[in-house]
């Protein structure tokens, strides 16, 4: 039981991490809590679905349920989600920023944006559940008592790869450095030759890409429905805050903590209270460490 809960926790946590990283980027660079972020995950998943349902799934690779086509679809979905994020920023958030709106106004606006995005999905794709592949994949016995599905394994691997890539991006590219610099001090970034508006646009792109990946992975290992993002919202936010907003590894750690605590908690508390666990953890952590576990030092 314990081993399985651990494995499941890590897998859930990996997907949550992808969402939490995006939230963290928004919190540090755009400086507001974006409640519409998890809707980008939904959109990412449905963008990819548009392509897979057009036949872009590819023949299954080994034990996986999908082929190269699906990976391509994921990439395109990422690009489209990034565009969507930019469009939303242009139409709503940037206008509000230009009006010197407070970060709270931005949070409200993000609530409204979330509602609109979610129901546009309903409008286009309908309310029903969708799958990329209805092929049911059996979990393989990894260790005694621990079963994992090949797709999950793949997702975990790809998530790790994405996080590593992101880390490389943030440490080795011009843009990544600029993003970290802006997160720490927009003023110093400006006098270091960084165009902050440019960085903000790219932040949306990166957040959109990761959200799309998280959404697609979720759709692949679970299912897609219009409310999927909304249902993930609390967990993703908890992950971001628990980890300590401002740090990539904090977000990943937070995702893992939320995933693990939900799954491990079911060993002791009734399963129907499971959702409360990450939240209670959040309150405890905020009470004792308001900056989160890994705080960005300034």
């Amino acid at each position: 039981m314990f081993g399985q809960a651990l494995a499941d926790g890590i897998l859930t946590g990996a997907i949550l991490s992808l969402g939490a990283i995006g939230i963290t980027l928004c919190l540090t660079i755009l400086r507001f809590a974006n409640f519409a972020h998890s809707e980008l995950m939904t959109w990412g998943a449905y963008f990819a679905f548009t392509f897979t349902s057009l036949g872009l799934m590819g023949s299954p690779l080994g034990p996986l349920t999908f082929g190269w086509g699906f990976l391509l679809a994921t990439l395109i979905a990422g690009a489209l989600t990034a565009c969507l994020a930019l469009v939303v920023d242009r139409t709503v958030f940037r206008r509000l920023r230009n009006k010197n709106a407070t970060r709270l106004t931005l949070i409200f606006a993000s609530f409204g944006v979330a509602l609109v995005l979610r129901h546009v999905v309903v409008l286009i794709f309908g309310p029903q559940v969708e799958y990329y592949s209805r092929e049911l994949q059996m979990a393989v016995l990894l260790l005694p008592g621990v079963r994992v599905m090949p797709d999950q394994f793949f997702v975990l691997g790809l998530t790790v790869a994405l996080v590593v890539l992101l880390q490389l991006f943030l440490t080795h590219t011009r843009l990544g450095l600029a993003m970290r610099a802006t997160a720490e001090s927009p003023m110093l970034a400006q006098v270091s030759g960084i165009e902050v508006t440019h960085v903000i646009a790219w932040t949306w792109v990166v957040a959109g890409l990761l959200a799309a990946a998280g959404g697609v992975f979720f759709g692949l290992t679970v299912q897609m429905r219009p409310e999927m993002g909304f249902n993930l919202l609390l967990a993703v936010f908890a992950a971001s805050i628990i980890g300590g907003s401002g740090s990539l590894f904090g977000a990943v750690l937070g995702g893992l903590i939320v995933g693990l605590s939900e799954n491990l908690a079911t060993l002791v508390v009734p399963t129907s209270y499971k959702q409360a666990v990450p939240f209670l953890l959040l309150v405890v952590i905020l009470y004792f460490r308001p900056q989160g576990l890994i705080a960005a030092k300034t």
Partner: protein
Amino acid sequence: MLLSAIDVIAGYQPDLPILHGVSVDVAKGEIVAILGPNGAGKSTLIKAIAGLLPLTGGRITLAGQSIGGLPAHRLLHAGVSYVPQIGNVFTTLTVHENLRVAAHTLSGRYADRLERMYALFPDLAAKRRQPGRQLSGGQRQMLAFAKALVTEPSVLMLDEPSAGLAPKAAETIFEKVRELAQGGVAVLLVEQNVKSALRFSDRAFVLAEGRNRLAGTADSLRADPAVADIYLGKR
């Protein structure tokens, strides 16, 4: 003059100007100090030149071209580097990354320039993998310098480079500044420490309450008792 600021009016709020028409200038290879008691508007002036504050009035030119009102990041491209007084290095980035952030504004390869910076500031070379927050005050100032110099600017603006440093570290900083000026960079610096500023600079402007009060060569000002009066009040 390479850089001139003429009759600059600026402040943090449009209706609350701190500078009421201040003029300063600096030529190639020259070190010019901006002096004055607290609240004189020294930092405000340098921030206004650096494009961080909106200009309410006045002109700023670089080699005859107007650069007033350009956003800060564009100014760096034009060849004006600015080192803020505090928070002038990214503490979450490593030394090397700090330099790269600045170097990235240049097109083309820049590896050799980074190496040149390490040659110029050997202390930093040893710490290139350490995050900025682990540096000592003097090292931070060095890094801030290096960051500003990596773009090979024609004008370097420094806001109180010796603030909070031990005398020895301050000395080193000033020596570096002199070296740079000899290399042809125009240096405009804001200083608290009047004596050392006047010792290292060629010329100086003394401001008070947002206005020009005195100006002249360092030597003439050093001998002028009016400077002390501005600081400590008239008798």
